């Protein structure tokens, strides 16, 4: 009868889990270590930006501020000098916004149409066209800097915001098109055929069927473009003039200005201010981003 009791008393229900297995300690330990590693610099920046210069000179860079002051933030935003202008980062911020909005919208708009045409309206040579476009994503763009200077000059756009918008749109095109093409390829052809039988044309299908289905990939594209364009330094410094410098360029000029003492707190505040936009975007759309990347990656 021992068999019988064994059957009754045997394991039942969910298997109990132990919290402190060796595996768990290892996994969570590693995660914690890297989290600290990445968060420490941020911590130093935040506390430093909230200290006055005398406190900074005492040296304890990890200790929280004894006396919290927002003066460095105010100075970084509206008073810090770059060259002749002494209106802080605010000018750069608005320049960056003025560059960012049209660049993002135009590049995503064109790329989504490209991707749609390349995936659903295959025409003679469309594969070749796509291959060339993708190749563009792998060419180091330093090669094209000077030719573009000439092109912009000839077009009368050199040194203007619109010139920079054009440059961002063009350089974002390969990767954006790739993204949208792969996403649209994943949408079943039968859906597209059904819409054609229902009398929708190129634009009708794009606007009424495809776009409403593309929210995840549009979010991904927006994040990639917004962070990419916001963080751009090279194009900003080359294709615009000091009045129109984007925020990153101005940040550099503030941090690297040679006259006077180095105001670490102002520099830290300025850097944090500059990084705020991409940071906010990530926080808002993190989940959608992961979902969209996965959706765009499944087929190609």
């Amino acid at each position, binding site marked *: 009868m021992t068999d019988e009791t064994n059957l009754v008393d045997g394991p039942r229900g969910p298997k109990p889990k132990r919290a402190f297995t060796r595996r768990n300690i290892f996994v969570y330990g590693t995660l914690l270590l890297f989290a600290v590693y990445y968060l420490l610099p941020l911590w130093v920046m935040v506390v430093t930006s909230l200290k006055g210069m005398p406190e900074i000179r005492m040296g304890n860079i990890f200790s929280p501020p004894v006396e919290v002051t927002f003066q460095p933030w105010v100075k970084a935003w509206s008073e810090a000098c770059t060259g002749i202008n002494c209106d802080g980062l605010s000018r750069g911020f608005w320049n960056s916004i003025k560059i960012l909005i049209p660049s993002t919208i135009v590049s995503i708009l064109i790329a989504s149409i490209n991707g749609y045409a390349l995936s659903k309206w295959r025409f003679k040579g469309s594969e070749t066209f796509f291959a060339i476009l993708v190749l563009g994503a792998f060419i180091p763009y330093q090669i094209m800097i000077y030719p573009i200077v000439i092109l912009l000059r000839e077009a009368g756009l050199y040194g203007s915001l619109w010139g920079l918008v054009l440059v961002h749109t063009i350089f974002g095109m390969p990767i954006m098109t790739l993204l949208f093409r792969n996403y649209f390829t994943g949408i079943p052809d*039968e859906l597209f*055929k059904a819409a*054609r*039988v229902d*009398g*929708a044309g190129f634009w009708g299908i794009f606007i*009424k069927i495809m776009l*409403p289905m593309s929210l995840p990939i549009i979010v991904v594209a927006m994040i990639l473009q917004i962070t990419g364009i916001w963080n751009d330094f090279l194009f900003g410094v080359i294709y615009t003039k000091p009045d129109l410098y984007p925020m990153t360029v101005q940040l550099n000029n503030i941090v690297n200005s040679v006259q006077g003492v180095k105001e670490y707190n102002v520099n830290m505040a300025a850097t944090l201010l500059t990084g705020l936009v991409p940071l906010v975007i990530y926080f808002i759309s993190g989940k959608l981003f992961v979902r969209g990347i996965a959706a765009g990656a499944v087929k190609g």
Partner: protein
Amino acid sequence: MSNNMQSSISIRDLKLSFGSFDVLKNLNLEIGKGEFLVLLGSSGCGKSTLLNCIAGLLDVTDGQIFINGKNVTWEEPSDRGIGMVFQSYALYPQMTVKGNLAFGLKNAKVPKAEIEKRIARTAEVLQIESLLTRKPAALSGGQRQRVAIGRALVRHVDVFLFDEPLSNLDAKLRADLRVEIKRLHHQLKNTMIYVTHDQVEAMTLADRIAIMKGGVVMQLDSPSIIYNRPANKYVADFIGSPAMNFYQGTLDKDNNFRGDGLSLSVTGYPFEEGRVAQNQQVWLGIRPEHIRSADAAQQCAVQMGAIVELVEPMGSDTQIWSVVDKQNYRFRVDGQTEMTEGDSIRIGFDPENLSLFDRDSELRL
């Protein structure tokens, strides 16, 4: 069907190639008004391609397509008077059922009141009134396919094209919807072209079946002719489950078949007019359901003793795999019949139920 008969769709010398690969080769097809034509064939034989050509979703390489007497070879899909239903339903996911039904009508600039009227009528016919405000994601497979059929129905088209509409559904639902499609056809009397892999669907729905292979139509006939008088060995083998039994042999001038352990006279076999076997080499085919066993075998013109090798009970009937002289004979008996592996039985068949095919051309004799 000849040209002067009222034909709804007429396909002339249709050719379609993907690069150097010819999918459809000089295909000719006449489909009568109100006819239900089923396209049947193995995977990759070009059924969907043909349907897409008729719909205008693929540009043909050569040839012409007429719908209701009008040459539509270069017309847009929406101008051809066709509606299409797909295997994957292909409903617009972000629109409600109502939006799905209305989409084609809005594109055609049908007045609002008329759209409402037609949607209401269609929803009633297909019993989807209660689903109109739902999104496709909130529907079951059967409901989705109803909506997809509705999307074609609501446009008042003359020709319905179905591309394996039921293959994503479970067996029960498939049978239900199959009946419903048949009822719909009786009611609307539209021309329907229906692609399927399922022989039961083909046999039950079709006025005529077109058996396709490698981009050509092998036989185009009514289900009963396809079944009883297959035009060639491929069709004979393709139609029927379990498949026809085939034996090789020779047929002499006095209609005696000899080969594969068989020796029989086929006197009484309904020969096709004017066909004779070249070199007397033939295939002899017997459908499993034409082989009789036990007492029924006693009345047959050809009889022999067999050993039961395998018994497959299917419920309503049982499939028997038996052996005579190392040759396999598959046949069916009633589900109640008791038979076990190793039994010695008598089997038999009659010559009029046979099929004979030329060995070289594989055409029916």
